[in-house]
């Protein structure tokens, strides 16, 4: 194990040991590797890369999966589940629909 590193996982800061892989991270978080997508610093990894890809200090990791959704509404994940928009200007909160008649 290497030196301590600080990474962002789904927007939360976490301290880990250097040298951990994406697979180690998922195991630690008790997240099954099937049905998730992992993005490190905006690069999407193939599932086959999980065991090889080592995390480094300052990495931004996003772990995503499918949740309930139809069209632009948000299901069980809630708004918190949204990724930070790549374009901040468009990060406005959704207006509540209003009954009109």
């Amino acid at each position, binding site marked *: 194990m290497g030196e301590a590193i600080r990474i962002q996982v789904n927007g939360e800061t976490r301290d880990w040991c250097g040298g951990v892989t994406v697979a180690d991270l998922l195991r630690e978080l008790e997240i099954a590797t099937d049905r998730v997508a992992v993005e490190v610093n905006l690069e999407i990894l193939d599932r086959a890369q999980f065991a090889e890809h080592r995390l480094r200090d300052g990495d931004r990791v996003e772990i995503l999966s499918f949740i309930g959704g139809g*069209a632009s509404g948000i299901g069980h*994940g809630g708004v918190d589940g949204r990724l930070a928009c*790549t374009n901040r200007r468009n990060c406005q909160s959704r207006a509540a629909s209003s009954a009109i008649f």
Partner: protein
Amino acid sequence: MTDDRFVIAGREFKSRLWVGTGKYKSFAETQKAIEASGADVVTVAVRRVNITDRSKENLLDYIDPKKYTILPNTAGCYTVEDAVRYSRLARAAGVSDLVKLEVIGDEKTLFPDTAGLIEAAKILIKEGFIVLPYTNDDPVVAKKLVDIGCPAVMPLAAPIGSGLGIRNPYNLKILMESVTVPVIVDAGVGTASDAALAMEYGADAVLMNTAIAGARDPIAMAEAMKYAVWAGRLAYKAGRIPKKLYATASSPIEGML
């Protein structure tokens, strides 16, 4: 209705009702409603895994991807960049190249940004995605989407979740006559008659979420929608009578006293 199938990009679909999985009270209710609807395509969203909640119930534990076609969407994406990013993430998380592409242009109406939609569709089609675009009821845009390689189009009936029903039946009909690919009317359905109407106009399928999930009894509404889509489809195939202003007697005059 069992042999009444339709094909999108070589994939055969038997149910003409597609359903979303948002807004249900629980995964168990989602599962029951989908079963009652008879749908074989279900839409899902792609979101961050909750890393602090250890209960970790997964939607796909309730909706078997072997039984249903999982159609990920790019709901909540307001830019081409985000829609492309979420599509790629969906493909990485799932098993197929299918994506219901949404590029939202306005947060009050959730109307699609059709210019952004075309741009994002072009990028994704080049990457091998099967792009099913959520679009406006605009026949010209629908044609453009087909021209760039979308194997189906998904025009709205009314704003997402509004339940207003088909607000522009003439546009929708023109759209259906303008393209040769399957048309799936998506969003705006409020109740069973809206779904039946969409099918009567000639839609190949209807996609809905809120109309079922938001009903007082979602499971009963799911079943109602199943029959509405069947009835509408049968009526379309049977061919309706023309509308006339005046009466035509259906009982003969001969033999009257």
